[in-house]
């Protein structure tokens, strides 16, 4: 059995010069090999040890995706400490809550902005902040601050120190505390052990034969459990290279430079590429557009054949190959997907159109299902799964069962428990099985199908069943709709609040020479309203076909004057909507949707401007 420290030491022994981490800084990619990583970790670990980090100490790691922070993880873990990753854009109350609930006393932070956030978050439990970049902080005198280079001064790299530490480590130790995403329930700190994370990562690596030669891209906030699993844990268990982009704005650019071979992305990433591409092609000359569209048709035809398990004609296949070669191979090159052999998504349901698109153009996209409680991955599709309805089979040694419609699982990847909260732990783990709070069913092949959060399923006042998650996924399938929230539980009829995708809607509007001044104006435009209405009508027709869903047809909808934003607390770091917050914040709008009003005027607290949101009947 291994710990992350033993994995590091093994890598450094076996392949000392193989690149371990690569971070783009100051315009160039800086490489860290496994032996360099070991040396730096040993220095960091000694420094942290001298400053009071010991076994069981939670240490906050607060910064962007960069080599330094992943090395920080390892340093903390080698001392037996618990890593508490904090996303670089976390601040204020949220930061305070995380620091507080995980008892963070030591923080490993990046620069001024992070230190400021920590000092201002209103928590006094933090005793020591190590920061890497001292720019602009000459005048900071707080005693808890310490420049990292001061802490490590005079310390020599020592593999022996790490080897000594290795002997004291135990796979059952807590490696990290990650927070549940909090879309429904409140955020809870989940303890995950070295053993659980490594077992999960190994299980994925074995299935997909991920090796040293693979390239990963780490771009999700550190606090996201998928980043911990699919970036950090996967890199250490397989020895592949972990690449960190230069900044948030350059992820796509850096992705093209690196060309990752394995990539995990929440559905929004794929939706973004999909929308971005269709927007770009919209502005092309008609000739190019035509070629592109017929190529897309060709690949989609074959993909749908495969999904249905049919064998297509030879001509179809020929066209398919031709389209892939001439159109989608360059397409992948542009988006840095050329070398991508395994694309993973999870954390939320992906829109079927987006899924089908990527499968059709030759990206081996798989849906996964996971929870923080299960190290972010419990089940995973195989490359034969051409439909997005199932989330595939459980990982090795993992079992899934359905009890009263709720999904439960158990296996090596399950959590140790909720940090310092035995009641919550007891509620979540019963007889060794972990509850998910999600509804679903298993099909005859043992594949899991997820219906959505139980808390968000309910019934309409008329008595019909109601499932918001499913309805939202259907709305989001439309490329012009960026976000959607559907309400209806214990109400008379389902309503939707959607936001439109600014970029593509603008292109759409410009083609029709619509006049508008900005996003808010555009979203309230009658033509946009009409376009969205038509789509929702189509969704309603589809819903009507199935007797189970025919009661869930939309009656009313609204297009919000802005997107739901993380800075307003409406969206999680992986851009899932926080339904409760949104319901609270936009109560007035929702009430108006359940009245006869045709518009709703309110003052948006974000910019304190007044907006009128038109309300549409479907």
């Amino acid at each position, binding site marked *: 059995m291994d710990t992350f420290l033993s994995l590091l030491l093994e890598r450094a022994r076996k392949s000392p010069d193989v690149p371990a981490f690569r971070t783009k800084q*100051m*315009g160039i990619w800086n490489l860290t090999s496994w032996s360099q990583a070991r040396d730096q970790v040993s220095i960091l670990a000694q420094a942290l040890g001298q400053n009071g980090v010991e076994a069981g100490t939670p240490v906050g790691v607060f910064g962007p995706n960069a080599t330094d922070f992943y090395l920080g993880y390892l340093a903390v873990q080698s001392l037996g400490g618990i890593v508490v990753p904090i996303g670089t854009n976390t601040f204020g109350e949220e930061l305070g809550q995380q620091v507080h609930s995980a008892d963070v006393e030591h923080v490993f932070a990046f620069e001024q902005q992070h230190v400021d956030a920590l000092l201002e978050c209103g928590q006094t439990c933090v005793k020591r902040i190590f920061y890497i970049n001292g*720019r*602009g902080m000459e005048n900071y005198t707080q005693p808890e601050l310490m420049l990292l280079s001061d802490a490590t001064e005079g310390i020599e790299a020592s593999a022996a120190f790490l080897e000594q530490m290795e002997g004291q480590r135990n796979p059952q130790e807590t490696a990290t505390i990650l927070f549940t995403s909090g879309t429904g329930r409140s955020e809870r700190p989940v303890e995950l052990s070295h053993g659980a994370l490594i077992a999960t990562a190994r299980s994925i690596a074995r299935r997909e034969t991920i090796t040293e030669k693979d390239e990963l891209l780490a771009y999700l906030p550190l606090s996201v459990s998928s980043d911990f699993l699919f970036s950090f844990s996967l890199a250490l268990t397989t020895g592949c290279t972990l690449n960190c982009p*230069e*900044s948030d*704005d*350059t992820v796509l*650019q850096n992705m093209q430079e690196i060309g990752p071979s394995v990539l995990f992305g929440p559905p929004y990433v794929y939706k973004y590429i999909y929308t971005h591409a269709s927007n770009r092609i919209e502005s092309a000359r008609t000739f190019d557009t035509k070629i592109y569209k017929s190529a897309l048709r060709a690949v989609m035809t074959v993909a749908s054949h495969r999904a249905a398990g049919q064998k297509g004609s030879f001509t179809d296949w020929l066209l398919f190959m031709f389209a892939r070669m001439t159109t989608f191979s360059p397409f992948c090159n542009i988006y840095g997907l050329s070398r991508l052999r395994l694309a993973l998504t999870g954390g939320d349901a992906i829109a079927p159109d987006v899924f089908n698109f990527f499968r059709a153009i030759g990206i081996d996209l798989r849906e996964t299902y996971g929870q923080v409680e299960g190290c972010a991955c419990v089940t995973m599709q195989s490359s034969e799964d051409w439909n997005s309805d199932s989330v595939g089979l459980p990982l090795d040694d993992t079992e899934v069962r359905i009890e009263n419609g709720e999904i439960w699982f158990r296996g090596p990847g399950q959590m140790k428990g909720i940090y310092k909260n035995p009641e919550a732990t007891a509620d979540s783990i019963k007889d060794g099985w972990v509850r998910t709070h999600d509804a679903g069913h298993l099909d005859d092949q043992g594949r899991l199908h997820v219906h959505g959060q139980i808390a968000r399923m309910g019934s309409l006042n008329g008595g019909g069943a109601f499932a918001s998650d499913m309805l939202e996924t259907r709305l989001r399938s439309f490329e012009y709709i960026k976000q959607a929230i559907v309400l209806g539980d214990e109400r008379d009829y389902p309503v939707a609040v959607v936001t439109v995708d600014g970029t593509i809607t603008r292109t759409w509007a410009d083609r029709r020479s619509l006049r508008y001044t900005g996003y808010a104006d555009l979203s309230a435009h009658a033509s946009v309203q009409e376009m969205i209405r038509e789509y929702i009508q189509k969704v309603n027709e589809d819903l009507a076909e199935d007797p189970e869903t025919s009661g869930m047809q939309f009656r009313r909808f609204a297009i919000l004057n802005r997107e739901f934003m993380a800075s307003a607390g409406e969206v999680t770091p992986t851009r899932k909507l926080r339904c409760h917050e949104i319901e609270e914040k936009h109560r007035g709008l929702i009430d108006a949707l359940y009245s006869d009003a045709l518009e709703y005027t309110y003052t948006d607290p974000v910019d304190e401007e007044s907006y009128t949101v038109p309300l549409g009947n479907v």
Partner: protein
Amino acid sequence: MAAGNPILQIDNITLAFGGVTALNGISFDVAEGEICAVIGPNGAGKSSMLNVINGVYVPQEGRVVFKGQDCTRMRPRQIAQLGMARTFQNIGLFQGMTVLENILTGRCMKIRSTWLEQGLNIGRARREEVENRRAVEEVIEFLHLQGIRKTPVGKLPYGLQKRVELARALVAEPTMLLQDEPMTGMNLEEKKDMSCFALEINREYGTTIVLIEHDMSVVMDISDHVVVLDYGAKIGDGTPDEVKNNQDVIDAYLGVTH
């Protein structure tokens, strides 16, 4: 009034074009390390003032003393060598070059290698390219320009061009930075960013900043010292609060006829 030694002294400057007097006997001091805003309505002579300070225009009368040296008649390049950098009102970027190349031009005074070495791409020339690139990258990081290094500046939106221009000025490591209407034509968020940058530059590098702004409200928060011009004459000089309560300034801004 302002603490610190005056780094720049403007002494009785008069500038005329043909028969038009653009500046009429203007005097004021800028203290080392402060942010000094020169404000005034359109046509008040603000830009002319800046052009006199860094040697683009030569005034008919008066003296400009920078770091104790009389630089009234110096060429812009000589003044730049004394450690003064500036940005322009209508964006003085080199439109035929990329962002990176534009910022690199800001390092021109640090170049020691000759053109022959550069043409042969040997020794010192190569080393300097790398050194200068590193300096440029620091500024790129500071101003968040990572995503657009290789973009031709002409293709950038206005706000970003202004930021690139600021980067080009900063990379020369100036002791004094002149900014000509850095926030004109920007939206609220960009204006906020721009004032943050000014404050950070001032705080971190100790750079003295003289900035011109048409819009009073934006600069009041960030400047230590405000000079108000109107019709080529100085009508106010002091801390933002003093200036805000100055009757002449209020009149000028409200358009009261004299």
